[in-house]
């Protein structure tokens, strides 16, 4: 057996390492190092440290801890509650207003935090008890929040998109823009389904609760608007080409931190320390996976795995849409086991050449990939959002959460199908704002 082949086999065999519970970052790194040792001998130990380091030391990656810090600061404050209340006060006269304000709050909070579990927790804490109080069944209450929370990784700014942009060398600003319309479409689909589900159970959507005066409505705004302005400012700066994502994220994080301290009087050093601790925890986890996958991608390409797979697929001459279907199924299965960031980093080096070879737009594909991962977030066994809901609403059975989330999975599949037929939903906005590629 040639060393290349045995190296490949070893690499694939070692991909079982995460299955025994080894952290993904270290499993990727160890599998790569051992395969390189087998193929290239001890000399590989001269380069892996430098590769690992080089994979992480880039200014573009600084945007990851910065955006995480921004999200952590918002999540540590009661901003989620205020956002929820403001929307409820403004939307409660609309039929199905509560559902709309829940999902709307999810997508707005998603923009603020860039994280799906954080969105789920922040809005769910308020939204689920409120829906239960007004007579919505557990399934709908839990399912809509679990699904709404997944929007966090699609609606900009999104850490997942940044990671995709870095690992595929695509423009992060463009990726963010590509996520906007599909994010709105998905929100609308979720809303539509929720209204239908309520109707089918004979639930009147006119349970309005109480009325709010214009004064009460206006009072709810000042606490929420500054945060929304920050997000708007970040997006404006990015798309105006004024600053890079890292710069925008850094300034945005500082502003958010200051606002949280000022508006919510979060003066205690201990709580600020907790914000930084959460940021460190999340960003170390992601950054180390980035380093590990740098080694992994290097190993794959030095064993010619990447090239062979791409050549093999190109040689198959299958219909490109059949190819897209296979890739989607592959991502769906992968998304059920791996967290989004890890999945992107592990598959992007293999998938991107295939995608571009088949003539698909990498920005459009980023949206498809992200929706696939959103599905993974609300399906077992590692559907993070399901467990978040289970944590904040312990009175709802996991079974009800699962059943309630299922229709939303179908909504996301529908969104993928729509995007396949009308790719412009993802590509139109970036073309308009930044110009055609």
């Amino acid at each position, binding site marked *: 057996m040639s060393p290349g082949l045995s190296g490949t086999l070893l690499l694939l065999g070692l991909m079982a390492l995460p299955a025994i519970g*080894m952290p993904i970052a270290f499993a990727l790194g160890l599998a790569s190092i051992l395969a390189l040792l087998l193929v290239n001998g001890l000399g590989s130990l001269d380069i892996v440290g*430098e590769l690992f380091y080089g994979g992480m030391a880039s200014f573009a990656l600084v945007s990851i801890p910065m955006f995480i810090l921004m999200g952590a600061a918002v999540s540590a404050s009661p901003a989620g509650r205020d956002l929820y209340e403001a929307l409820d006060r403004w939307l409660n006269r609309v039929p199905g207003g509560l559902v709309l304000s829940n999902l709307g709050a999810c997508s707005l909070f998603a923009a603020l935090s860039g994280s799906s579990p954080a969105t789920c927790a922040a809005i769910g804490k308020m939204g689920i008890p409120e829906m239960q109080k007004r007579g919505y069944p557990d399934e709908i209450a839990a399912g809509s929040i679990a699904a709404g929370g997944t929007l966090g990784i699609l609606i900009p700014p999104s850490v997942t998109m940044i990671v995709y942009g870095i690992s595929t060398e695509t423009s992060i600003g463009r990726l963010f823009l590509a996520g906007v319309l599909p994010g709105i479409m998905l929100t609308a689909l979720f809303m539509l389904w929720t209204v239908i589900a309520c109707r089918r159970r004979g639930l009147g959507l006119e349970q309005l609760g109480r009325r709010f005066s214009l004064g009460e409505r206006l009072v709810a705004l000042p606490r929420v608007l500054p945060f929304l302005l920050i997000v708007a400012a970040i997006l404006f700066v990015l798309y105006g080409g004024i600053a890079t994502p890292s*710069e925008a994220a850094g300034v945005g994080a500082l502003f958010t931190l200051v606002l949280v301290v000022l508006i919510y009087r979060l003066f205690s050093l201990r709580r600020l320390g907790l914000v930084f601790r959460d940021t460190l925890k999340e960003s170390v986890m992601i950054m180390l996976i980035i380093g590990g996958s740098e080694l992994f991608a290097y190993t794959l390409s030095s064993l010619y795995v990447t090239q062979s797979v791409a050549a093999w697929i190109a040689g198959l001459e299958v219909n490109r849409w059949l190819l897209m279907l296979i890739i989607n199924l592959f991502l769906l299965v992968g998304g059920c086991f791996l967290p989004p960031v890890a999945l992107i980093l592990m598959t992007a080096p293999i998938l991107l050449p295939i995608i571009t070879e088949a003539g698909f737009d990498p920005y459009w594909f980023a949206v498809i990939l992200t929706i696939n991962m959103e599905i993974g977030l609300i399906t077992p066994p590692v559907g993070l959002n399901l467990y978040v809901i289970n944590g904040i609403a312990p009175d709802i059975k996991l079974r009800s959460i699962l059943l309630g989330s299922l229709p939303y999975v179908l909504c996301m599949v529908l969104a993928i199908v729509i995007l396949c037929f009308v790719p412009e939903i993802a590509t139109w906005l970036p073309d308009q704002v930044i110009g055609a590629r």
Partner: protein
Amino acid sequence: MRTYIRVVTALSRAAGFFSCLLLLAAVLVVTHMVVVRYLLQGSTVWQTEFVTYAAVAATFLGSGYVLLLKGHVNIDILPNVAGPRLRRVLDVVSVLACLLFCLLLGWSSWHFLYEALANGWKTPTVWKLPLWIPILPLPLGLALLFLQYVAELLRARSEASR
């Protein structure tokens, strides 16, 4: 043994605290850079590099602390469905594999550090920072991670024998 666990845990916590400070510094320096560059139309020399290396250093130095917080994401389906005995075996195997990773990558990164020092490498910018300074957190962080994993192993053993 208990002293070892306590000392290593304290070390990891201290490194984690330092990492948080690095992140704070990074946020402040990015903002400073943006102000100088876009508002004052000035040019910046060291900020971009400082921020990049601070974020990387925070990652490496913080990795042991994040282990303590159980923040390194893994797939725990198999350990969760396994019986208590199999689970203990899986845990030990995965910790040993992590130790091997720290050893191999750690060895390689000391080599990287040594080369940077011996050849007097500098960063390719106006700042000309000696490259060994930003590299140093890599081997240090991996050493801390190694020590913390050993502590986890010892803790698991003492819990098992109880």
